[in-house]
């Protein structure tokens, strides 16, 4: 047995491969991305026969894994929590059909949120979908729970959710690696239309069977396990704590630090709630504090809440991550004498927001868009380029693919209002376009919506750490696969204005956007699609070296370069009231030269005597 320091996502991956899974699928999204990457790493290191894929989106990932389980294999699929929304159409149906081989679904929630649109709680989704949910509190526990989840899933022929959160996914801990068990054999698909292709009449029967399965699972969850048990059972206290997930670990460390013993029901099996165990625990205390993230899945399920304190009654803040200082304040509310001490020193921490990298191709694309059509509405999308908000190049950000649909919606609403000059430029990244932009663009085409769509193609899923896109021609494990280009897709949708350009050619891009806009105004026109192609600068050099210099005498401090362009390598010197270039981070792409209206940023070579 080897001990290895692994990321929480690696621990989840370890649970998947140690359980003999035959198929693992995912779509990248923080904080879940490394799960599939770690599956691939273990697969290569131990020469395991497991099929892995980066799917086009989370619903596709879910379906591919589900089919493998229907055939009798063990399968797993991972996603960030908003990906579960995308997969939910199949998820809810799969609860009725069930599975044959164990199927584990790992949605990763993001209390905070640090890198997401919502603080939604996938455990609430599991209640809605009638799918059991397990909630690990540490990476080690996550690995063990994944193993248990496969057995549970197989025993009851039902997919099982192992819900992780950012503090599990991106924690790191030594783990003793166990050898993978052999995959299940034999597998076959036994045709059974009443189950696998059930009509509404049979669905009623399946719903009844699902309810019976859940009742049996609920009974199973009543048992004491390493992840569902009372800690500090014998301690005398008027308050009892019920906790699950990462915050369970937080409160255990905090009580230890404070030298307090408070009976704590650690609850790793959140849905269906082991009701006898929970109500029995509640009855023993005058007050119960429920600590869970990001919402109130346990609290909602407790039948009698008159002495329960938590997210719902406001004792625990109803939103946000339960960091140790938050939990300490909450403990102070329910346990007199546990007041928070003043901090060691009062000092304000200024948190620097992330920005697009120096040399990033998205920046000149955004700049050109604003130069070409400064009064337009700019619907944006999900990815690195959401950071276009920094330079006001993103006006809306809703969900994957929504740049295209929001652009259509704005157009139709404005046309109905009789707006004379409709100016809309939407931006979407390459992977996001494949994920959810395709039906959106088809809809725009066949409803005759008119806008410019700028597809920011950096040839990779950059935000989450360089996963391949459908245009890359390779898969998660590096194997070569057929590819489809964005152009092929856009042409196939019937779009008649398609241009490709390198966004570094900033003047040409400005003209092209204007030309695209004219196309949207013509009676025989339509959506204009411009594919701005430039590989991610973190993966390849700018391909040219154009050192720039600031001529201080020419800089009048207008800050247009900072506000409209916003490169992190351009700095404002408050003393001289002029802009400077930070050499340490500058990649010498030379784009900023075109941006300065006063010719204060020039090619260094032009300054040579």
């Amino acid at each position, binding site marked *: 047995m080897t*001990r290895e*320091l692994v990321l929480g996502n690696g621990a989840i991956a370890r649970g998947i491969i140690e359980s003999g899974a035959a198929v693992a699928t995912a779509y990248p999204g*923080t*904080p879940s*991305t*490394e799960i599939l990457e770690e599956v691939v790493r273990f697969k290569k290191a131990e020469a395991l026969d497991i099929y892995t894929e980066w799917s086009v989106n989370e619903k596709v990932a879910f379906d591919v894994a589900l089919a493998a389980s229907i055939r009798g294999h063990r399968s797993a699929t991972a996603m960030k929590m908003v990906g579960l929304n995308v997969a939910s159409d199949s998820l809810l149906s799969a609860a009725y059909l069930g599975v044959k081989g164990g199927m584990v679904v790992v949605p990763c929630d993001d209390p905070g949120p*640090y*890198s997401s649109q919502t603080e939604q709680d996938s455990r609430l989704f599991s209640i809605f979908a009638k799918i059991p949910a397990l909630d690990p*509190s*540490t*990476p080690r526990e996550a690995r063990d729970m994944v193993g248990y989840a496969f057995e549970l899933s197989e025993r009851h022929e039902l997919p099982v959710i192992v819900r992780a959160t950012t*503090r599990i996914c*991106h*924690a*790191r*801990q*030594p783990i003793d690696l166990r050898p993978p068990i052999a995959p299940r054999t034999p597998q076959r698909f036994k045709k059974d239309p009443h189950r696998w292709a059930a009509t509404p009449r049979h669905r009623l029967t399946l719903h009844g069977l699902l309810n019976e399965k859940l009742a049996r699972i609920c009974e199973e969850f009543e048992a004491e396990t390493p992840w569902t048990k009372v800690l500090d059972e014998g301690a005398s206290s008027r308050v009892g704590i019920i906790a699950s997930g*990462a915050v*369970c*670990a*937080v409160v*255990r*460390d*905090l009580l230890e*630090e404070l030298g307090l013993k408070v009976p704590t029901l650690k609850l790793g099996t959140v849905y269906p709630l082991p009701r006898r165990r929970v109500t029995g625990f509640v009855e023993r205390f005058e007050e119960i504090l429920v600590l869970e993230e990001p919402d109130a899945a346990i609290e909602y399920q407790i039948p009698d809440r008159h002495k329960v304190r938590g997210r719902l009654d406001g004792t625990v803040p109803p939103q946000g991550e339960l*960091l*140790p*200082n938050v939990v*300490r304040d909450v403990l102070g509310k329910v346990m007199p004498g546990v007041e928070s*001490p003043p*901090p*060691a*020193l*009062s*000092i*304000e*921490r*200024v*948190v*620097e*927001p*992330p*920005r*697009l*990298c120096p040399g990033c191709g998205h920046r000149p694309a955004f700049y050109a868009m604003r130069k070409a059509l400064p009064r337009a509405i700019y619907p944006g999308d999900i990815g*690195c380029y959401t*950071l276009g908000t920094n330079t006001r190049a993103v006006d809306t950000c809703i969900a994957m693919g929504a740049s295209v649909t929001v652009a259509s919606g704005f157009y139709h609403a404005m046309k109905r209002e009789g707006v004379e000059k409709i100016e809309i430029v939407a931006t979407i990244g390459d992977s996001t376009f494949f994920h959810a932009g395709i039906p959106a663009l088809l809809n725009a085409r066949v409803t005759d919506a008119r806008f410019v769509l700028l597809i920011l193609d950096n040839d990779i899923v950059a*935000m*989450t*750490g360089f996963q391949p896109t459908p245009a890359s021609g390779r898969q998660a494990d590096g194997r070569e696969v057929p590819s489809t280009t964005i152009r092929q897709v856009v042409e196939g949708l019937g779009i008649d204005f398609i241009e490709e350009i390198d966004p570094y050619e900033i003047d040409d891009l400005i003209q092209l956007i204007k030309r695209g806009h004219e196309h949207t105004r013509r009676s025989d026109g339509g959506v204009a699609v411009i594919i701005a192609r430039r590989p991610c600068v973190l993966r390849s050099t700018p391909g040219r070296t154009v050192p720039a210099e600031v001529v201080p005498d020419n800089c009048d401090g207008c800050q247009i370069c900072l506000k409209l362009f916003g490169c*992190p390598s351009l700095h404002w010197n408050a003393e001289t009231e002029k802009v400077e270039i930070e050499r*340490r981070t500058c990649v010498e792409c030379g784009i900023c030269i075109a941006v300065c209206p006063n010719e204060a940023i020039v090619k260094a070579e032009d300054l040579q005597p």
Partner: protein
Amino acid sequence: MRLVLAGRGGQGIVFATRVLAEAAMSLGQDIICAENHGMAQRGGSILSYVKLGDYASPLIRIGTADLAICLDARELAAGLLYVKRGATCIVNGVRELLPADHLAAAEAADITIDPVDANGISARLGHPRGANLIVLGRAARTVEGFPGLEAFQHAVRVISAPGTEDKNLEALASA
């Protein structure tokens, strides 16, 4: 021991956290740490938490860390915010250039600020990305209860990218 590492995206804070964790693990210590990924990269403020010993959660409460390691002088406030009275805060920077109010606040709270000019040293070594290891090396040599230099050298050998090991070892031992 509880410590925070503060820095900016792109400065190798995740790598530094891994090196520290591997170093502790090689000494048989248990460890749990937490990192920022995703949106927090791209030059934004980043904080890593590390706990050495028997802990369940990687998270650390403000004002309770035993040590702060700031890979960027602009993140000194983050480090100071997390440490307790009497703790040490090692910072990549030059004392004269650190904000006077931060220095005064630290002194009033009995917090020792230990500046290391890791940017300057890494430039001299011709290893611009080695600043993180220079600061870690300082902690390894000066902080009681912290894994020693040998453990860090072992960790660097284990996880350095091909071709960077010698430079990384040099950075580790340079301050």
